[in-house]
Structures are given as C-alpha cells and as structure tokens.
C-alpha cells in the first residue's frame, strides 16, 4: 500500500533568545502539533533552538525568482540609498 502524502511544513528555529527565527528546512506531518513535535525531533537534537515555528508550506506566498527583475530592479538605480554613496571630509567620515 502506498503511503499517503502528508502535508509539507516549513520549519523555522530561533537559536537564541533575541534572534530572528531562521528557516532550517521542512518536513511532512499530519497537522501543526505533529509538525512541531517532528521538528523538535528532526531539527533540534543538539538543542539548536529555544523556539520553533512551523508553517504549512502551501500557506507561504512567495515571490517568483523569474519575476525578480521587475520585482527588485527599482532599487538598482538608487545608489544614494547606501551610506557610502556620500563622500564626506575625512575628519568626519566615521559618521
């Protein structure tokens, strides 16, 4: 009998209090609770985290790599958004 495909979940870990949760991978699970337990077993066996988030992969809305030109290129011609664009006198350049 073929195993029934379970939903895919994305796993995010906070490695230390105060830091952002970072994406670490994904897994299949029946529901959120199970995903959380699996995530603990799969991704934190060496106490890599103090907090876990799981999100159903199908609930993530992502930008498409193929569209990334039109999505991100408005920033390409705005070098003045970067601090080092401005040339200041040496004596105060640490600003």
């Amino acid at each position, binding site marked *: 009998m073929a195993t029934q495909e379970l939903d895919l979940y994305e796993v995010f870990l906070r490695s230390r*209090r*105060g830091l*952002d949760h970072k994406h670490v991978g994904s897994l299949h699970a029946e529901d959120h609770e199970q995903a959380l337990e699996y995530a603990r077993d799969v991704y934190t066996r060496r106490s890599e985290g103090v*907090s876990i988030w799981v999100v159903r992969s199908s609930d993530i809305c992502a930008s498409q790599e193929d569209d990334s030109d039109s999505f991100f290129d408005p920033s390409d011609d*705005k070098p*003045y*958004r*970067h*601090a080092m*664009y*401005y*040339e*200041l*006198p040496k*004596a*105060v350049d640490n*600003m």
Partner: protein
Amino acid sequence: MTPEENFMRKIEAGEKIEPKDWMPDDYRKNLIRQISQHGHSEIIGMQPEGNWITRAPSLRRKGILLSKVQDEGGHGLYLYSAVETLGISRNELIEALQTGTAKYASIFNYPAQTWGDMGAIGWLVDGAAIVNQVSLQRTSYGPYARAMIRICKEESFHQRQGYEIMVTLSRGSAAQKAMAQDSLNRFYWPALMMFGPHDSESAHSARSMKWKIKRETNDDLRQKFVDQTVKQIEVLGLEHPDKDLKWNEERGHYDFGEIDWDEFYNVINGNGHANRQRIEHHVRAHEEGEWVREAMHAYRDKKRSAKQQAA
C-alpha cells in the same frame, strides 16, 4: 521561581523577553508607550521633510529626499509591528496619536523653513536619533531590539546626506553659508532636547533602566551627541551655537550650556509651532485613504464569497 522572579532573572542575565513570555503589566505598558511614541515619531517625522520634496534644488537631491522619507515610513511600520506583539491594535495606535494620548518626538513640531533645514535635520535630528537607536539595539524586548537593528542599518545614509547638504552650503556663496549657519542655530538645541529631560527629572527613566528597556540614560546619550558634533561643526567652518561649550580634561567630555527647558515643555504640551498642523495633516491623510481601505475590504469580501460559492 515565581513568574516575576523568572522575568527578572532573564533581564539580569541579559536575555531578551519575547512576545509570549510572561511580563509584568507595567513592563508591557511602558514598552507600548515607548515603542508607539517611537513609531509615531517616524511617521510624523515624514512631514517636515516631505514638505521639501517638490522644492528640492536638483533631481539628485529630490531622489535622495524621497528615499529618506520613504525609509521613515518603513521605520514607522517596523515599530508599529513590534508594538503590536504586545497586544495593541493598529487602530488603537492611530487613535492614540490623533487624539493626543500618545506623543511623538517634539522636534517635528519645529517648521522646516529653508533648504538648509533639510541638511540640519538629516545631520542633527537623524544624528541624535541614531545615538539613541544604537543604544536601543540592546533593549530587553526582542521585537523592539530587532527593529532597532534593522533601522540602524538604514539610518546612516540619512545623516550623511544631511551633512553633505551642509558641506555644500557652507562651501557655497555667503548667502548659502548663512543659510547653513541659520539652520544649525535653529536645530542644534532642539536636537539636544530629543534625548529628553535630565535623568533626575525623567519620570520613566529609573524603571526603564532597571528593566533594561533603556540601556543608557538621557544625559549620557546627550553627552555622546554633544561630543561627536563638535568636530562636525568645525569641519563645516560654522560657528558653534553653544557659547558655553568647553572641553573638560578631567571628564574627557565637553561641558555644555543649559538647555531651555521651558521651551522643551512648552512644545511637548502642544504649543510648538506646528503641533496642530502635524496632527491635522495626519488625520486628513488618514481620512483621504478611507476609500482605499474600503475598496480593499470589498475586494476581500468578494473573493471570499466567490470561494464559498465554488465550494
């Protein structure tokens, strides 16, 4: 260990408090007050500079100013999201701003009268804000600290573009140099006031320090700003607005003149040049956006009912 003791243990160990952790009511209230005030300052702060976008002297300056104002809008949103983790809604935040229960930095009640003010604001006002925000990167509430780290990365261009305007003006004609001096004179003292009252007078300071919401006192941060600005004024070849400024060898800092605290409280209490105008403008902009919010809700409802019919 009681929840209270556990909370204090984390604070003392330098650990961050995260949204779902237990925290004392007053810690939560204190944070809501401070973070919302900070967010409102970013939002209201867009007005004095926004006022000059159409009058920037070149396309380059216009692009820069537009980008800066855009950044401030973004900072407001980072901070609103951070404060919402404490259980207050966006509507409540906006309501508090518009009815005056929540405050924003008084500096934005000063009018931006000349192009030189765009220089002085970026250099001094953002400069003072950076000193404060760098310190707050170590604040004890996780979402606030992370918002500060993101904001600090973006701030440095704000100060540098302002200083660049000041360099250009002070190397220009006599009239341009006078404009730079005038802007420096008008914004220097209000920038020092941005750090708040003396520690001895500050209502929230001691407890905020104990809870590590604030990491350095108002007076220490102000001293840092005074010290770093001396050289910057000198390089511009402008006159320092503080006639009492003097290097103190023993302290390793500059001594400086007394701030006009009557002016400070006067502006905070609503009698600044632009208090009424700033809030009126915010209310008007908010009301003018009502049809957009309505359209978005109508679209959401339509999509929902289409989905239900299909099901």
